[in-house]
């Protein structure tokens, strides 16, 4: 009974956090305190928060290390752009188009998750990390050679160059190889982002609290014991992995449709690592922490602007110092008193 209460409490804490963020931003908008640079960062913040939640499902709840989550973001983002761009003339209402784009992005990312997940989830530990890393690089590489255009006959696709598409002169390019998607209609909005974030939170929290979620955590804590108890290890790992991939895909759509151009190299290894940093700094398996870390660390480079050239250097030092400090025995002992119960639950 107590366990259930705790789950519900964290869930409300997370919804409350999103609500506070929403209200704070609305107040800042209304009173005009909002700077333009911060306003431009709202959607990226939400996208990265969703990415952090998605990766936390894999790293924290399922206990697998993924170094290629930006790959799923990329798959989602470019699917979303293609869908939104080709429906531009047939569906006028942009919220509806955004919804369809997000669903399509999540779906293709989920398919990518299944394709990668089925063979790979048999491996464990660092090997899964390498394969996901390799997957992320493959996606980046393929997207770099992808040319997609649309004309009255429909979509054209090529891995060679723009001329081999054979488009009508009135056709429009959507993806342009290494240049990525250009001329995107910006249809992501702050409110749409908040709604997507809330939906993702509902999905993750219900999954984690459910029978399936307990099975996933049991496998994380002791795979052999879980297997001996009759749990289908690959199935439950796959559920966590594919859900995470789909969520990452939706975050990608939200992110891409906020810019007029998005290049494939935006979703490279560094982005995967960035999201992993959010998850680890926020506390592995801790959704609230991941959300806060993602938001703070997305804004931090902007806030460090006064250091100018030194800001990424400062960022790196902050990262190292935080990691060493949080793993220091003395600091740990301080927190251990507070979180004794939780530490036990998280193993």
């Amino acid at each position, binding site marked *: 009974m107590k366990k259930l209460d705790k789950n519900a409490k964290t869930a409300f804490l997370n919804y409350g956090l999103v609500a506070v963020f929403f209200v704070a931003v609305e107040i800042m908008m209304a009173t005009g305190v909002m700077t333009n640079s911060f306003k431009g960062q709202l959607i990226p913040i939400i996208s990265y928060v969703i990415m952090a939640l998605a990766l936390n499902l894999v*790293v924290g709840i399922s206990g697998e*290390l993924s170094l290629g989550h930006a790959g799923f973001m990329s798959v989602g983002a470019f699917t979303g752009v293609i869908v939104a761009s080709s429906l531009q003339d047939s569906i006028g209402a942009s919220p509806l188009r955004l919804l369809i784009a997000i669903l399509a992005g999540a779906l293709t990312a989920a398919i990518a998750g299944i394709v990668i997940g089925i*063979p*790979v989830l*048999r*491996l464990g530990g*660092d*090997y899964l*990390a*390498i*394969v996901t*890393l*390799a*997957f992320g*690089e*493959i996606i980046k*590489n*393929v997207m*770099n*050679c992808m040319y997609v255009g649309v004309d009255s006959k429909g979509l054209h696709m090529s*891995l060679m160059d723009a001329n081999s598409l054979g488009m009508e002169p009135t056709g429009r390019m959507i993806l342009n190889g290494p240049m990525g998607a250009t001329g995107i209609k910006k249809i992501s909005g702050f409110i749409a982002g908040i709604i997507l974030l809330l939906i993702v939170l509902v999905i993750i929290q219900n999954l984690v609290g459910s029978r399936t979620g307990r099975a996933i955590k049991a496998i994380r804590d002791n795979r*052999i014991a879980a297997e001996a108890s009759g749990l289908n290890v690959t199935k439950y790992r796959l559920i966590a992995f594919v859900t995470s991939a789909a969520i990452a895909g939706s975050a990608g759509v939200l992110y891409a449709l906020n810019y007029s151009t998005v290049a494939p190299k935006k979703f490279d*290894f560094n982005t995967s*690592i960035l999201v*992993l*940093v959010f998850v*680890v*700094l926020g506390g*592995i398996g801790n959704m609230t922490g991941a959300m806060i870390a993602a938001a703070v660390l997305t804004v931090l480079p902007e806030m460090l602007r006064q250091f100018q*050239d*030194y800001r*990424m*250097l400062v*960022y*790196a*030092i902050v*990262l*190292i110092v935080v*990691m*060493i400090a*949080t*793993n*220091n025995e003395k600091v740990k002992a301080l927190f251990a008193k507070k979180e004794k119960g939780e530490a036990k639950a998280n193993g």
Partner: protein
Amino acid sequence: MLGNLINGISLGSIYAIIALGYTMVYGIAKMLNFAHGDVIMVGAYIAFYSISYFGMPALPALLLSIAVCTMLGIIIEKLAYKPLRNATSLAVLITAIGVSYFLQNAALLLWTSNTKVFPNIFANIGAIKIGSVQIAPVTLVTVFANIVIMLVLTLFTSKTKMGKAMRAVSEDKGAATLMGINVDRTISLTFAIGSGLAAIAGVLLCTAYPTLMPTTGAMPGIKAFTAAVFGGIGSIPGAMLGGILLGVIEIFAKAYISTQLSDAIVFAVLIIVLIVKPSGLLGRKINEKV
């Protein structure tokens, strides 16, 4: 065909030397040292400035670069990784990423983002012709260096006391401590050797592909790391085999399939190998104990 094979072996030998650094550090400290690629970059810059600005001959420049990188490796280990000896592997991984960011951005401030053209240190030696195939001197030196390094490392780990201590620590830290092995010093030594090798790899890499930027080390680092996994991480001959195969596959993919998709093909082969043989080509399979 033969020319491509030679190019592949040359590139692969560079990957192999980098992969040796990854594999040794992984074997002993069980950590993915993501900063390794950036140590390569630092090594290349040191050699570049000693040759181009201070007019040093190539060999002393290489030795200086090895010395600086060895020191750098030891300092990084002492400052960033040693406090995390008992932390989770993820915490160490993130710290390594932090170190990698640090090195890249420090290089950006010190040496700016302008691309430097690395001098050809074998300029006065002509290419060697075998039949219709020309072999650049850097290729010969790289392959030769790779073989020497592997032989020396194999002898070092199997014959010397320090090398045996390294193997003992990678097998079981606790038992090694009980046998009177200084674990901290052994780990430092591993980082020193790995970083020294990184300097050699950096100079060879930039001689073969003479563009030098603060991000030069990142991609070869990732590829060498996958090469280490490919061959079976923790195994010295595995790193060499994995590195050379990766280089050959990459050059052949570039020559016969697609230049742009070559990286994708390399990584796809890696995924297939890992699915068929999860412990890598020469890796040992460790059975789980219940």
